[in-house]
């Protein structure tokens, strides 16, 4: 939890926070799973299953240490799984079980 101007903010609300390291502006080629994640979330939105504000809420609600470790599209995947589980479209642990099998 961080505080700016006396108001508590979540982990994503970081504008103005001190940071000793410069912003990494390097570009990288998107991996297939990142493109698929973008397509998946777009399709879920198009189908009316989840919207961008839900996607953002799911990202902002990540445990701060996981948020810090995760890359951009890892956060999307985390959120999509969270929101779809909330809606009962996924069972808790269903994806992990499928990946492990």
């Amino acid at each position, binding site marked *: 939890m961080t505080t700016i101007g006396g108001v508590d903010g979540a982990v994503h609300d970081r504008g103005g926070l001190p940071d000793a390291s410069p912003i990494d502006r390097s570009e990288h080629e998107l991996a297939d799973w990142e493109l698929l994640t973008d397509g998946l979330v777009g399709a879920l939105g198009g189908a009316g299953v989840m919207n961008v504000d839900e996607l*953002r809420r799911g990202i902002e609600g990540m445990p701060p240490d996981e948020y810090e470790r995760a890359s951009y599209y890892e956060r999307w995947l985390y959120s999509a799984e969270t929101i779809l589980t909330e809606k009962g479209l996924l069972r808790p642990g269903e994806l992990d079980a499928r990946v492990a099998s």
Partner: protein
Amino acid sequence: MSFEPGQRVRVAARTHPGHHRTPGYVKGRTGRVERVHAQFANPETRAYGADGQPAQRLYLVGFDQGELWPRYQGAARDRLLVDVFEHWLEEAE
């Protein structure tokens, strides 16, 4: 309450634990309405699966950088423009 271009406004300094699009660094700060945008579905309810209605008016608010960052070293005319929803704005004297 609605606002006009040029009007001085303060961003509410309230805590809001749920999803919202108002950056922490503008909360409690005073700026000026630069532009009145359209109304948009409210992301604060849409983020929980609702339809975001009633739609909320969005404003482009300009802040002096020195108002946001007390130790700002840049030019005094430097400003930051942020989109803020109407229900986050208060009239400033």
